[in-house]
């Protein structure tokens, strides 16, 4: 009898052990790699780091929730805002890391270079930044989608707001001579033509220019002079132009731009000269939103920047699709991504036949006391402060 009891206990222990082993096998989910590329160093590092952290947050949250059949791993690469570095990073993600999907790039020139790499390897690529229209419209690679608005959408909104709503009709344009700056130049001209704005001058400048004073001096000498100086470019040059405008006594001109300088770096660099700059910015996410709370709770060193919510939604969208169709069939993945209707922190996201989101939200913002403030919440909209010439 005693022997029987002992045998029973032994069998029970073995059975439990086996069950445990089986259980742990079940818990060992397949790891799926998701690629991330952005500028983690260089002039746009703030945007890249904010996006990287947000993508990381999305992956961590998905893994923690545990409702996915896979465990996700984010493979992070730096493109340093440089196309050749970007291509090397993209190639590594596609060949060595063999990521299922990648979410990429702040800079359009980098994106315009890497779309070919992702296309060659058939790896789906979703842009969280990079707003050049050609990224989606020129080749229409089935692998490419973009979760943010493109330059055409951004400039239409900017022109309509400043020309139609606020009555700033005459503009001088400065743009950087990268493909991004060029696309801004073209988009702003087209957008102004649509709403009856007038372009008085247009000057290209190489990225890295520090002295904008000769161009500003020429704009100052224009008769009649413009009401707006618009810059199509990114943050460092944008801040320098505003600083030098102020130094040259051009405070009576409105300074405007698009998402390229929707970064706190602009306010930090231009300091008190930043006041009153108007941009069409990335969608403003409230400080009390679950995303911001989770981001802060995770203790990231860098601010999430305007790009963070886009990278967050892109990563969540990607994991949702992989959960649904699995990581292996790249063609199916690309097709499912384009067909999805996803609801994230940016609101609903849906792609057109070019993989361009139709819904990527934008917010008009104004620089007020060193911060980008949504126009509707600013003292400029209430009339407490006033823009130049108002």
């Amino acid at each position: 009898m005693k022997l029987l009891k002992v045998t029973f206990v032994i069998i029970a222990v073995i059975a439990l052990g086996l069950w445990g082993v089986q259980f742990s096998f079940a818990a060992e989910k397949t790891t799926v790699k998701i690629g991330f590329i952005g500028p983690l160093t260089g002039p746009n590092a703030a945007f890249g780091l904010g996006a990287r952290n947000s993508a990381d947050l999305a992956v961590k949250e998905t893994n923690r929730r545990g409702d996915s059949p896979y465990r996700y791993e984010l493979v992070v690469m730096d493109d340093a805002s440089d196309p050749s570095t970007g291509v090397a990073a993209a190639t590594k993600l596609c060949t060595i890391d063999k990521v299922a999907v990648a979410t990429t790039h702040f800079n359009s020139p980098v994106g315009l270079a890497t779309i070919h790499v992702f296309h060659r390897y058939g790896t789906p690529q979703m842009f969280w930044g990079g707003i050049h229209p050609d990224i989606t419209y020129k080749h229409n690679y089935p692998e490419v989608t973009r979760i943010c608005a493109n330059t055409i959408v951004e400039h239409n909104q900017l022109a309509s707001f400043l020309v139609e709503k606020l009555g700033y009709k005459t503009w001088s344009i400065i743009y950087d001579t990268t493909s991004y700056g060029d696309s801004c130049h073209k988009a702003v001209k087209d957008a102004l033509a649509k709403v009856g704005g007038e372009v008085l001058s247009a000057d290209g400048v190489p990225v890295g220019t520090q002295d904008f004073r000769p161009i500003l001096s020429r704009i100052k000498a224009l008769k009649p002079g413009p009401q707006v100086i618009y810059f199509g470019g990114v943050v460092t040059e944008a801040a320098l132009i505003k600083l030098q405008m102020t130094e040259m006594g051009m405070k009576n001109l409105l300074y405007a731009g698009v998402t390229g300088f929707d970064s706190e770096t602009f306010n930090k660099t231009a300091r008190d000269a930043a006041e009153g700059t108007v941009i069409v910015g990335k969608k403003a996410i409230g400080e009390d939103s679950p995303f911001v709370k989770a981001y802060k709770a995770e203790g990231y060193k860098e601010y999430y920047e305007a790009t963070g919510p886009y990278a967050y939604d892109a990563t969540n969208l990607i994991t949702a699709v992989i959960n649904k169709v699995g990581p292996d069939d790249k063609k199916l993945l690309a097709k499912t991504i384009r067909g999805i209707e996803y609801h994230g922190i940016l609101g609903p996201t849906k792609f057109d036949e070019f993989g361009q989101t139709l819904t990527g939200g934008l917010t008009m913002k104004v620089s007020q006391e060193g911060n980008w403030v949504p126009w509707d919440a600013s003292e400029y909209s209430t009339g407490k402060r006033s823009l130049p010439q108002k």
Partner: protein
Amino acid sequence: MANPSCESEPLLGNSAMLHFVEVLIIALMLSSTYILIAVGFTLFFGAIDIIQFAHGDVAMLGSFVGMILYALGHITGIALVLPAWLFVIGVMLGTLVITGGLGVLFERTVIKPFRDSPMLMILVATIALGIIIRESVRLFYPEGSNPQVFPRLFPQAGFQLNGLYFRVGHILIFGISLLLILTMMIFINRTKTGLAIRAISQNIEAASLMGINPDLAILVTFFTGSVLAGIAGILIGSYFSVVKFDIGLMGGIKGFSAAVVGGLGNFNGAILGGLTLGMVETFASAYIPGGAPYKDVYAFIIVVFFLVFRPAGLLGEKAYQKV
């Protein structure tokens, strides 16, 4: 590219004059930064026939040393104890001594070992030195790859005169540059040490036979050249508000080109060369429609022009030996 600015009204009368004067002032500011770097190139070439290609990076170091000293001053509380102007002078003096010292260190470690070697060796060694300096700043300075906001050392106040806007800070920057260049001229042409430098530049053996210690003279040359570059770094940082680890590369090439245009080895030539380059760049940006993206192209066309048709430069005495 169609340039809509052509379609606007031509510049007329007073406004055109005002524009011209404003551009002239902008050009003078830019020129003075080139001159401060060009003088170093010309000093080194004049003294021991070498081209120190890392000289632009020494100027960049000046900006960063200035920023570090400024930050240290604030961390330690010294900035709060001293009056603002005294603190700024302290930061500048500190930067000047440190960059001067670094210039001497670079000469002793990278240039002196090759003093009797072919010129090409020094060329390669100093190019390598430049890369080491740039990359060290990029890697070791916090967030070194990113543009750094330069502290406001000079007053931000401004005033308007006949429709022109002036900044007290900019006038100070220009004044300091001018003062440094003048001091340098007096130092080279009127002092005994200056005489020693000029002597070794003519004939190092004969000079040492006359009792000049060439090592010491070369050391002084590198110290003064690097001091000027360091100050140039601070002035450039203050004028442009932003500095980056790689500004020395273009700054160095421009400074070197200015020295070549003026005549390598000739002090007045460096001034003239710096002025030429700064003027061409600024006026091209301001007056040629759509010219801004090509401002460096215009500047370097001038350089190529001089190399081809007048290799000795505007005021150069030494005929160039093609290597």
